[in-house]
């Protein structure tokens, strides 16, 4: 396996806040990696450091096996695509004209425009001026621009925060297809459903450190309280631990034909997020 991003003991402090206290993680080629954390936890800061938009204070960060400072080199910037909240479009130009500029900058043929706009479901509106676009449409144009050159690595900072469910689903499909062609995706989000359906692995960032990391399945198992809920025909429901001690009661209910429904209480990523980060909201 090839490591695409390798971050060790990354630290970054601003005047008023300690954005990243000690962050360590790595991303392998072909992964869709979800970076989850509450607002202000340092997600965007991490992306900025990885794309050489911000200097780190301490620690090591490698992208494509090169120290992040190499990303200042224009040649290396061909390898990644990026969408963050500080990405901008030319408002007096049409969607198509904006993308045409970036085709030239990335040295890809203009046919990439059609493909990218179909990816974000905007091809029919390509002649529209950017100043006329809604927030969600702007976000989709930025996404189209980020994938225009089919980069090896894609940084997406909350790519679907302004989108409706239909477009979101369409974009998930596109991202999966892109990923299958070999693009590694680093994605930040608040949307736990998104992380669960899209990401191979997720990391929970809180207070400048990674609190948990793994596949959604692993994390759910790790944070599971191992309980099952049994709904009985009399309308009551029982939450019991999934262990030998409770085997008898389960057996009895079943023998007496009392059970209407039974399910295991797996936490959602959202539950885990709350558990990890919720404590300091109090």
């Amino acid at each position, binding site marked *: 396996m090839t490591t695409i991003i390798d971050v060790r003991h990354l630290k970054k402090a601003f005047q008023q806040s300690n954005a990243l206290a000690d962050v360590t993680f790595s991303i392998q080629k072909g992964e869709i990696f979800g970076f989850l954390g509450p607002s202000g936890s340092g997600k965007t800061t991490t992306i*900025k450091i990885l*794309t*050489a*938009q*911000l*200097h780190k204070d301490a620690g090591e960060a490698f992208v494509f096996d090169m120290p992040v400072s190499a990303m*200042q*080199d*224009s*040649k290396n*910037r*061909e390898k990644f695509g*990026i969408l963050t909240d*500080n*990405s*901008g*479009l*030319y*408002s*007096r*130009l049409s969607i198509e*004209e904006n993308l*045409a*500029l*970036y085709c*030239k*900058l*990335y*040295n890809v043929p203009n046919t990439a425009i059609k493909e990218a706009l179909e990816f974000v479901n905007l091809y029919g509106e390509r002649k529209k001026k950017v100043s006329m676009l809604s927030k969600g449409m702007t976000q989709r144009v930025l996404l189209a*621009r980020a994938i225009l050159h089919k980069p090896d690595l894609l940084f997406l900072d909350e790519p679907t925060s302004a989108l409706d469910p239909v477009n979101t689903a369409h974009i998930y499909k596109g991202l999966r297809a892109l990923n299958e062609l070999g693009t590694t995706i680093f994605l930040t989000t608040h949307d736990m459903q998104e992380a669960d359906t899209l990401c191979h692995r997720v990391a929970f960032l809180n207070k400048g450190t990674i609190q948990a990391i793994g596949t959604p399945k692993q994390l759910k198992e790790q944070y599971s309280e191992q309980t099952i809920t049994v709904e009985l025909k009399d309308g009551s429901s029982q939450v019991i631990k999934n262990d030998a001690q409770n085997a008898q009661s389960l057996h009895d209910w079943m023998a007496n034909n009392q059970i209407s429904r039974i399910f295991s209480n797996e936490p959602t990523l959202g539950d885990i997020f709350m558990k990890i980060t919720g404590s300091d909201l109090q």
Partner: protein
Amino acid sequence: MMNISIARIQAIFMKDYKEFSRNYAISVMVFIPIIMAFLYRDMEFDAAQKMLFPLAITFGMVTAFVQAALIAEEKERNTLRSLLLSPASLADILIGKSALVSTISVIIIALCCYAVNYTPSATMIIAIILSIVFYAALGTICGLFAKSTMETTFTVLPVVIIFPFGPFISMFAERFSVLKIAKWLPSSQLADLAQGDSLVPMIGIVLWTIAAWVAAIILCKKRMVD
């Protein structure tokens, strides 16, 4: 490291041209020096004298101010950051972004020369082109400093009044001796050159141009990181 791509420079130039032609608040600026030149047309001084004012206005209001406004807008809308994150090199971006105002300035000055019936010498043409390159750098610096497009109006204004109007400021040097430094401004050097003196003023303009671009490049590199 400073790899230059003509295709990228051209793409940035074309983009700027489209934006500029749709941005009426800024593009009307091009008419001011031309109107000025036509007003001077029938005055009594010699052609070189008549040219001084339209030239100063072009450098200040078009080359420096328009450049500052374009750069400030790119900064404000985050398009500059996006460009800096693309494979375009700093050289591609700075050359591409200066190409439009430079071209426009050349056209305006040519029209002004025609209007006042002035035929510049070869040395004068070189000096004018160098001056344009200098004012483009000055505009870039102002644009990078400004926090918003609105703010450029204020940051650029002093620069636009001081730098291109060296010969006019020098007129007051007899009364206020501090103003003697005005004769070292690139515009004063250009005026000297127009009077016939050529080596020293040319060196002066070259030095100003180099210094301004070094400053612009350093500032732009700083803008690459937060």
